[in-house]
């Protein structure tokens, strides 16, 4: 029953979107307001249908309807209620439906919101977003239908993958999808503007918040994913240059590059073509990322099911690339730039340089990710590219990028005087050179660590001092209330706070150079020293919690003669899964994590433990706080041009 409901809702959504695209194109051609209005309404109706389909699937999970294959594969009767709701995106089919719902939601917001502003390109935008919808709905109906019937019917489902039964995993996929789909919006605006032959660039202002929010979700989505890996996978780290991780990093790199270079277009009317290409690349990379993660063409430790939807993704990427480049080539006039010179030490050049690094990094990741595929396809050699390759290129590029970030903060548009440069850069330059020299020659640390931390310090200094200046300016202006002092100069402060978050993130990365790792076996009451910690094994524990049986080790921790507490790394046995899951125990402090995973409980009464010391890892998660605050500042700012327009209306 519910199966038919959801399936027909998806079918109706496909028909409606197809109609909306067709009506939209015809309406634009004939300049018919009625057709365009009808197309818009069809988009709104599509959203309704997708919600129905989504709710139907959720309902099926809540009622344990194992006659649906997707539900039977990803849920079981004993699954806690919370995870039943979130199990909808615990597999490919359901997550595509979630993706489609977000896309439809964004389309509906745009259809409703931009009826006055950007009215003339709204029909074009909706057509372009409609194409994405058609593609996804086509996949949902043809290749990965979440409502597929299960024959023969089973009485009990296989249960949700225990790895996914974690709060981090619950919010990570939707967050990432919000970012992915979000970048579809500026792409659609840009393409629509080209298609409609619009002279002005106001789509940039209209999509400024969309871009920022998408970037925010993409960034936090990745950090949350890393946090999930850290807690659930039990190998002590959060990033391994796995194809699936790379897939989300690539659009982030080009998206971040765009976020900067679009400001050059907004302020100085330059880099028009470049921005268009970055947007196309970002959008295509989000689709490529999904292709890589979901088609199973690459060996990945991520436990995604293989499916045969790969070719569909490749076709869609090809369509995106061909269609968008055709538009770009057909409208060369659009990209004419005003003559204008910028001095060497200008913000324009700072952003340009940062773009070169971002794109270089993206290309590195792309190359390393698909190289094994090329080698196998072209030369029939199976090989694997590992972390050292990525680290050897990404680290130097990253070091230069952080330096560029630090310098660009103090640069002005057009040019910066030598005096200003000296005033703002002298102290941090001297400081970072001292750090590098001391690190290399006095402490003999790795050069990558010396340079990265010095650059982090450099950028941290310039960003903080710019932020500080902004606050003292507000004070000098005589802003009265506390709120007025805090809530002003929002664009600048938002940017500074987010960059400060980046610095925090980078310092967190530096912690990786100082981690320690040890595997050992303990008998009851035996003690092992790891770093400053003394770990003592007391006894085996065995208890039931939620839907799993936990077996593990009770350990006491001591450091410098002080008792810190008991922790329990365990293995969890889920009745629906044959393999046990390692649940790590983490003793967190501000500066480092003591991370213990249970390797095995041995026959002779001993336990084997893997112990990691991870310095500064909490800064990586903590950086999200800066991103959140900075984002609120940034989106609260309204560009002057938009404010004026509203005043006139």
């Amino acid at each position, binding site marked *: 029953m519910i199966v038919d409901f959801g399936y027909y809702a998806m079918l109706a959504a496909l028909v409606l979107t197809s109609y909306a695209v067709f009506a939209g194109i015809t309406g634009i051609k004939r300049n018919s307001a009625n057709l365009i209005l009808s197309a818009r309404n069809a988009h709104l109706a599509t959203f309704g249908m997708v919600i129905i389909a989504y709710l139907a699937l959720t309902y099926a999970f809540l009622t344990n309807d194992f006659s649906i294959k997707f539900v039977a594969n990803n849920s079981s009767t004993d699954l806690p209620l919370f995870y039943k709701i979130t199990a909808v995106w615990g597999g490919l089919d359901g997550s595509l439906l979630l993706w489609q719902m977000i896309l439809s939601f964004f389309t509906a917001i745009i259809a409703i919101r931009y009826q006055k502003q950007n009215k003339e390109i709204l029909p074009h935008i909706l057509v372009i977003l409609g194409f994405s919808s058609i593609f996804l709905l086509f996949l949902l109906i043809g290749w990965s239908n979440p409502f597929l019937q299960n024959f023969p019917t089973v009485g009990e489902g296989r249960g949700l993958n225990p790895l996914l039964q974690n709060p981090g995993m619950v919010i990570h996929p939707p967050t990432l999808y919000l970012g992915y789909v979000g970048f579809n919006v500026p792409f659609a605006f840009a393409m629509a503007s080209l298609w409609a032959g619009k002279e002005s660039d106001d789509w940039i202002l209209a999509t400024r918040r969309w871009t920022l929010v998408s970037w925010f979700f993409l960034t936090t989505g990745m950090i949350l994913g890393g946090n999930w890996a850290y807690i659930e996978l039990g190998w002590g780290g959060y990033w391994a240059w796995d194809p699936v991780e790379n897939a989300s990093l690539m659009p982030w790199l080009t998206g971040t590059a765009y976020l900067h270079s679009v400001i050059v277009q907004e302020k100085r009317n330059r880099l028009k073509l470049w921005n268009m290409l970055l947007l196309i690349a970002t959008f295509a990379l989000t689709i490529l990322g999904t292709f890589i993660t979901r088609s199973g063409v690459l060996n990945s430790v991520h436990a995604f099911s293989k499916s045969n939807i790969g070719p569909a993704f490749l076709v869609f990427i090809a369509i995106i690339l061909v269609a968008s480049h055709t538009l770009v080539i057909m409208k060369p006039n659009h990209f004419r730039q005003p003559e204008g010179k910028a001095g060497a030490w200008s913000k324009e050049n700072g952003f340009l340089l940062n773009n070169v690094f971002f794109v270089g990094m993206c290309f590195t990741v792309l190359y390393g990710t698909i190289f094994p595929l090329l080698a196998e396809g072209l030369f029939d050699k199976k090989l694997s590219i*590992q972390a050292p390759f990525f680290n050897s290129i990404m680290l130097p590029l990253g070091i230069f990028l952080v330096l560029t970030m630090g310098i660009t903060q103090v640069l002005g548009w057009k040019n910066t005087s030598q005096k200003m440069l000296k005033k703002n850069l002298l102290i941090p330059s001297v400081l970072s050179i001292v750090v590098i020299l001391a690190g290399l020659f006095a402490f003999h640390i790795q050069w990558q660590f010396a340079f990265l931390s010095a650059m982090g310090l450099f950028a941290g200094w310039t960003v903080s001092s710019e932020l500080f200046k902004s606050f003292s300016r507000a004070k000098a202006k005589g802003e009265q209330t506390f709120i007025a002092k805090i809530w002003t100069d929002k664009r600048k402060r938002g940017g500074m706070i987010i960059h400060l978050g980046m610095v925090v993130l980078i310092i967190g990365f530096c912690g990786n150079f100082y981690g320690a790792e040890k595997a050992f076996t303990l008998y009851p009451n035996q003690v092992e020293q790891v770093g400053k910690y003394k770990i003592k094994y007391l006894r085996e524990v065995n208890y039931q919690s939620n839907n799993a049986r936990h077996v593990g080790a009770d350990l006491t921790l001591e450091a410098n003669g002080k008792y810190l507490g008991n922790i329990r790394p365990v293995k969890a046995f889920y009745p629906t899964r044959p393999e*046990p899951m390692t649940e790590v125990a983490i003793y967190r402090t501000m500066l480092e994590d003591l991370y213990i995973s249970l390797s095995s409980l041995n026959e002779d009464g001993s336990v084997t433990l893997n112990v990691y010391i991870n310095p500064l890892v909490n800064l990586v998660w903590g950086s999200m706080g800066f991103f959140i605050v900075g984002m609120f500042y940034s989106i609260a700012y309204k560009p002057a041009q938009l404010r004026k327009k509203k005043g006139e209306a």
Partner: protein
Amino acid sequence: MNSNTKKYLIGGGLVIAIAIALFTSISGDNMTYYRTPAEILANPDDFMGEKIRVMGLIETGSVTWEPKDTKLGFRITEDGKHFLMVTYIGSKPDMFKEGQGVVVEGSLTAPGLLTATKLLVKHSEEYKVEKHSDKKADYYKSMAQ
């Protein structure tokens, strides 16, 4: 030189430098070929000292585990005819079991003996449905081994 040309020269130079760095940096240090146990056992001398990756299934009954030294030993095969001995110092991964597909990476320390530095268990979202309860019991048992 006008500033635009300079800019393009710097930008172009950077792009070319990155490209060269990329294409030359995939080397033996960060790239490993996949080999099969049969391939290695045919000419073990060719592979001595070289870093290799081998994919295979764990032979039933071949697993040994010495908790004191956290030393894991097993044999892997791809075709059921050629078996490669593997030793690994470290912990037993969650899904490590007989018959399971694994990827090991390391180098040959003796002909036919691979000393692994990395051990990855191949796993997928799709599990077999049947006989959960039996398997669970097996797993409690395998844990105690």
